[in-house]
């Protein structure tokens, strides 16, 4: 998943049918280094952090040449039909294709039960017998490359109904076909309604406990829960509800977990009612996700991994382990004090649905290649001695990176940083500069680094630190300069670097360019792929571990429309990731959208159009995206960055 942002390849510009064969651009290998974490194990840092696994590529064994679509032979084998009852959602359709028994990713425990329960079990959803689709499976894949026949597999569009998670379905209920994502909420639409309250606090219980039941109902109505407990069952974190309210439930969860652990058969997940429970044991901690939004186990597990990374980022792994080996009953709440906002930020991001998390990739600000080069050169010029990484981040998107040749940045680490900067309000609301000790577990989970952060609003002219008080500035005009060092005494050094950087960027015009780019925001889908049916897409460059997308507007306005879209993307993503079958293209048709997922060794592309779009039109749109990327690659992605 988390390959580093480190690649000088530009192979994406090639035709998807051409295999670049150069997937391992990150394995530069000089290990001599003077960069150190501050604490506590310097020597370990002499080693380059290990390359993160790239399961998707490994599993698939790179068999398929980019873009050329071959159906896996295995897909033709008889399928397990384990989920007849809830075979409604896209994921279930695919489960029918999956080789459950040979899939390393599927946990028997979790697959045995229905994974995608309907939100409203009683509701009669169009129970297209998905089992019939079995044969259709063989035609589900098409090659959306130019010159490929697009029509042949006739009935595909008719066969696959309900390309949606329960979340997607519920959110879409009673929405007219014409413009489903724009529609207002249906009154009886449980999920849409709940989504509006999802992020509201559950209050504390009264002293007399009178309001307990009411609170519990509010609590139970949440679409998603995250819990972190210690191995001994002590609650450490819960997204919703205070200790008192949830203690019974934590107790039940703990009992379940320890029962199965005792039986040497750790519980990985189960379904209760309409909720999917997924457990992730991590050393002295157990992390639990409860979702009624239809995400896959693998996706929920990725989310839990991210919460765990946040805990490591606060404490470091050795310190976490030390605390529990010294005292198994340690109460981690104290050492984690004040980091709830960070965990909440991550959790809510997952609930809202974030392309970045889904794809484990970053988004960059689109800049001309020559402009980005000037920014990079400026960064290198003003780089100060103790700098490890430098980032310019605009409204959650990366503008430029400066880094040592031997260290790349991990998307997981960057996600933590972005979450801290843009989700948790305290850093930017402080209105000053910040000096933050943190561990970047992808870089090195044993020690701390120190992060200088300075925000400024790009809508104001003034840029001196004294003048930057963007406490109420909108998200979209925030520019952050992030400078990371292993030396905890380098605040003033980095502060000076920041001043130099800003001065230089002003002087050479880059600041104006960046501000313009920020103000422009995302291009709309119709600007990128004019004349096609596409309403939105996600394109992930696997080599660069970056993604790009058009604006959500005008088709996906507001939280719920976006969440619906993200649910659809989650489904598509799951359909090409959660299996060993080498399915490379996935076309789905639901009553309110058609969608296409296309995967090659170079990229993943997910496209969405309205339900009446033909497959051919969708494919034409996908090809348009690919050729747009071919032209724009060095604008929408940071390729290499400023390396010293």
């Amino acid at each position, binding site marked *: 998943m988390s390959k580093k942002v480190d690649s000088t390849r530009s192979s994406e510009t090639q035709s998807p049918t051409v295999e670049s064969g150069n997937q391992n651009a990150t394995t530069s290998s000089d290990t001599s280094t003077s960069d150190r974490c501050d604490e506590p194990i310097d020597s370990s840092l002499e080693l380059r952090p290990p390359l993160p696994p790239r399961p998707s590529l490994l599993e698939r064994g790179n068999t398929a040449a980019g873009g050329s679509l071959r159906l896996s032979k295995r897909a033709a084998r008889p399928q397990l039909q384990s989920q007849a009852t809830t075979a409604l959602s896209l994921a279930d359709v695919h489960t029918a294709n999956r080789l459950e028994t040979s899939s390393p990713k599927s946990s028997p425990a979790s697959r045995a039960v229905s994974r995608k329960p309907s939100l409203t079990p009683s509701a009669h959803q169009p129970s297209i017998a998905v089992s019939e689709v079995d044969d259709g499976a063989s035609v589900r894949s098409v090659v959306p490359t130019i010159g490929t026949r697009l029509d042949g597999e006739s009935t595909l569009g008719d066969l696959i109904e309900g390309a949606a998670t329960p979340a997607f379905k519920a959110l879409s209920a009673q929405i007219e076909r014409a413009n489903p994502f724009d529609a207002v909420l249906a009154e009886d639409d449980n999920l849409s309604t709940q989504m509006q309250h999802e992020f509201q606090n559950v209050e504390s219980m009264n002293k007399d406990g009178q309001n307990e039941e009411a609170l519990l109902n509010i609590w139970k109505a949440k679409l998603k829960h995250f819990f972190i407990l210690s191995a001994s069952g002590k609650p450490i974190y819960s997204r919703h509800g205070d200790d008192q309210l949830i203690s019974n439930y934590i107790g039940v969860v703990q009992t379940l977990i320890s029962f199965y652990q005792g039986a040497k058969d750790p519980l990985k997940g189960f379904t209760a009612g309409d909720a999917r429970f997924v457990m992730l044991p991590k050393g002295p901690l157990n992390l639990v996700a409860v979702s009624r939004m239809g995400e896959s186990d693998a996706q929920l597990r990725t989310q839990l991994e991210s919460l765990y990374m946040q805990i490591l980022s606060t404490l470091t792994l050795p310190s976490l382990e030390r605390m529990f080996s010294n005292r198994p009953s340690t109460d981690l709440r*104290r*050492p984690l004090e004040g980091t709830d906002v*960070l965990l909440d930020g991550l959790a809510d991001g997952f609930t809202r649905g974030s392309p970045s998390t889904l794809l484990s990739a970053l988004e960059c600000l689109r800049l001309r290649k020559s402009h980005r080069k000037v920014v990079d050169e400026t960064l290198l010029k003003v780089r100060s001695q103790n700098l490890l990484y430098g980032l310019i981040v605009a409204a959650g998107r990366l503008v430029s990176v400066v880094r040592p040749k031997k260290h790349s940045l991990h998307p997981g680490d960057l996600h933590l940083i972005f979450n801290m900067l843009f989700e948790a309000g*305290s850093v930017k609301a402080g*209105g000053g500069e910040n*000096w933050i000790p943190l561990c970047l577990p992808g870089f090195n989970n044993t020690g701390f680094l120190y992060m200088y952060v300075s925000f400024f609003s790009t809508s104001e002219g003034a840029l001196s*630190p*004294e003048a930057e008080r963007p406490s109420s500035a909108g998200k979209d005009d925030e520019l952050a300069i992030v400078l990371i060092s292993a030396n905890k*005494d380098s605040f003033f050094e980095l502060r000076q670097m920041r001043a130099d950087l800003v001065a230089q960027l002003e002087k050479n015009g880059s600041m104006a360019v960046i501000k313009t780019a920020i103000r422009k925001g995302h291009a709309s889908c119709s600007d990128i792929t004019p004349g096609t049916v596409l309403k939105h897409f996600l394109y992930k460059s696997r080599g660069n571990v970056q993604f790009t997308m058009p604006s959500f507007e005008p088709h996906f306005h507001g939280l719920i429309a976006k969440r619906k879209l993200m649910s659809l993307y989650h489904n598509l993503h799951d359909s090409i990731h959660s299996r060993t079958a080498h399915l490379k293209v996935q076309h789905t048709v639901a009553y309110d959208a058609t969608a296409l997922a296309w995967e090659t060794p170079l990229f993943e592309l997910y496209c969405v159009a309205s339900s009446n779009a033909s497959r051919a039109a969708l494919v034409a749109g996908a090809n348009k995206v690919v050729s747009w990327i071919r032209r724009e690659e060095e604008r929408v992605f940071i390729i290499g960055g400023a390396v010293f």
Partner: protein
Amino acid sequence: MTDSTASAPKPSSSVKLVLLGEAAVGKSSLVLRFVNNDFQPNKEPTIGAAFLTQKCQLPSRTIKFEIWDTAGQERFASLAPMYYRNAQSALVVYDMTKPSSLVKAKHWVAELQRQASPGIVIALVGNKLDLCDDDDPEDEAQDGENAEGHEEEAVRKVSTAEAKAYAEEESLLFYETSAKTGHNVSEVFTAIANAIPETSLKGPRTGAGGGTQAAISGGQDTSRVNLNARGADGAAKEGCAC
């Protein structure tokens, strides 16, 4: 609040100030009030430390405060020396509705007296005066916002007399403030600015003076403050481990 204009060419000097105290007593809120004249009822906890600057006009000179607002969490405690090492002044804050925060404040005072620059000017600040009905005329006007969190604590738990006696004993400046209403906030900073010994304000490259203990009330001794030290010397080796 913060006199910003006065463009007369008064001498100006920088003063390093550090805020210490338990988490959630209102350190960041005091700074926000001082620097931005703003208040946020549900301020998120500080992560790491924030660095801010603000000018303060005295009749005879301009003081530019360079402020370190630290996070009060335990895991950051070992980093504190980094922030107070070269500080000429410190604001040690407690929450008047929370007695344990005064205990914590006393620990900070002791640590500063032991470890910080000998001439450091320390102000003890009891914050959240607005929650103590006894002397806040605006009280009625501010229901709403913070209600739930403070319902029970909305009573003074640390008496003025107790805190004041302690402050006098230790030669600390003492103020009771409300970041919420702004009561006494600029006064604290002005008092600190006034209490900084003239001799340590001689422009950017102040030489080292004597290492005398500066009693606020009494002598305006020179204090040994190297304005430019910027952490180059004697880096404390503590990390931020727990």
